[in-house]
């Protein structure tokens, strides 16, 4: 099939507003949720956004009817992740926000995102980062794929799409400890990508200006057909009972090599019973 006759791709990129890892990150005392001041677009989601933009560009871009939508859920400030995505090159954005979402674990988050994607879609491809840089569970992409009954490719280190008679097919490569795998799946599908897949671009002046004109749809739980008790603390299947900062590591001994540092290292290891 000729590329021009393949239908326009709709790609959803899930983007998260997360505490900046460059600063100390905190869990708040009262409800044991993450403190979200000093937050940024998760660096790992930038690779997913870049992958979406490259896929679309490889197949004719917006002119061919393709569209990249940046999607987030979270409090008012979370929209900043969508705004940054629009500056980088996404075409439009969706922000699900509702007080009831506070405290959602992976199961509740994936329930909300599944309903959100169904409402805002249909999408041919859902792209995510390999993990959020705050929760770090990497459960959400797999649970979303399960809830939406989509083929799932996680930790993709490369990604290509090919149009065909029966629709688009994706090909990906990924590396585990024991294997290097090649994978194929029909669209629609869900793919999470690693930081090996590309080098994310930065927003430029033109992109920042263009973003001002792009649409961000703001939705509530009611809009996507969910009840308050299906998400947040009430809709979660796990609970955090206590969280305590680990005492910071203190600096130990630092020596400067005067020709015997290797021997002094062995003395240290022997003293620690590490040999």
């Amino acid at each position: 099939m000729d590329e021009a006759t393949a239908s326009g791709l709709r790609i959803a990129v899930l983007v998260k507003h997360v505490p900046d890892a460059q600063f100390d990150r905190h869990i708040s005392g009262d409800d044991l949720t993450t403190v979200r001041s000093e937050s940024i677009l998760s660096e790992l989601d930038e690779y997913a956004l870049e992958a979406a933009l490259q896929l679309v560009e490889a197949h004719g871009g917006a002119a061919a009817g393709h569209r990249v939508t940046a999607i987030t859920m979270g409090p008012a400030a979370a929209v900043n992740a969508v705004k940054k995505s629009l500056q980088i090159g996404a075409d439009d954005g969706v922000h699900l926000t509702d007080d009831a979402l506070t405290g959602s674990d992976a199961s509740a988050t994936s329930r909300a995102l599944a309903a959100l994607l169904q409402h805002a879609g249909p999408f041919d491809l859902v792209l995510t980062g390999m993990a959020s840089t705050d929760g770090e569970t990497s459960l959400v992409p797999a649970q979303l794929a399960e809830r939406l009954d989509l083929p799932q490719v996680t930790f993709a280190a490369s990604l290509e799409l090919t149009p065909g008679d029966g629709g688009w097919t994706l090909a990906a490569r990924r590396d585990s400890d024991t294997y290097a795998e090649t994978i194929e799946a029909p669209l629609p599908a869900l793919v999470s990508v690693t930081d090996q897949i590309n080098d994310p671009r930065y927003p430029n002046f033109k992109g920042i200006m263009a973003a001002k004109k792009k649409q961000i749809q703001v939705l509530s739980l009611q809009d996507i057909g969910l009840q308050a008790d299906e998400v947040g603390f009430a809709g979660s299947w796990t609970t955090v009972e206590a969280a305590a900062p680990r005492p910071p590591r203190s600096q130990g001994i630092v020596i400067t090599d005067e020709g015997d540092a290797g021997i002094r290292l062995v003395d240290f290891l022997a003293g620690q019973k590490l040999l």
Partner: protein
Amino acid sequence: MTSVLVFLDHPAASLAKSERELLSLAASLGDVVVALADEAGQAYLDGIGSYGVQRYYRPDDAAVSDVLVAGKAAFLAEAVRASGAGIVLLGNSYESKEIAARSGVKLDSGVITDVVALDGDLTATKSDFAGSYTVHCRVTTGVAILTVKPNSVEAVEAGPPSSPEAVRVAVELPRAAARITGRVEKPVSGRPELTEARVIVAGGRGVDGDFGPLEDLADALGGAVGASRAATDAGWIEHSAQIGQTGKTVSPQLYISVGISGAIQQKAGMQTSKVIVAVNKDADSPIFEIADFGIVGDLTTVLPQATEEIRKRGL
């Protein structure tokens, strides 16, 4: 008594250390049964049997392993139903976490990953924010599905080998799934697995292309070799050796950081190590802020001297 189902993926010739740890933890919690996604040899099955396992579950369709994750998750959910297990334990690889994630949705059950300790009432301990918080959490709904990090529990001595009996469960494969079309096995190094190693020697950009001195030291210490992203990006060592936020999280007894500056994303993967040693020629490198023993010096002289000294002492 609660029945505890242990999911074991990719069985090798015999039980791996982390698998023995999982079976030991399970035995401390209740009656143990096993779900085996792939074909296993007799020695492996006898090994499972030596942990008191009398039954193991197998999918009735070998194709569960040809599709990514979804097939194994469907199989695990069926094995949980068939066994009536109240607790499910898996390893902590990315694939195991995803199998846990998807079967959690199928079973309406909560999932907790990266567990390092579990007490009798199933309160799980894990660390968050790259090791800067210790968190206690629990599954509140459904079967408790937990993925447990290697080296978190002591593997107890197994009993005499015995053959558990296989129970086949019917698995409905997903309608649309990603298929594995090619698989190339990676060469094995002969050194311990990074996530299981007691000692790790990790190198960064400062290694400047030559991991030889690090490999020699690792071999003298019986350790594994890891790397920073700068070193894996440069192609000096395999990507699977990367430690950090987007690589592996490790917490060995001893972590020797060589020619690594100690960026936040690198520290994220190693700061829960018991003892940290750093060798770096720049005294201002942030790695020295967390090192128990720091050496300001050139790795090309410090490492060979240390390796030679270890060998000389016959250690």
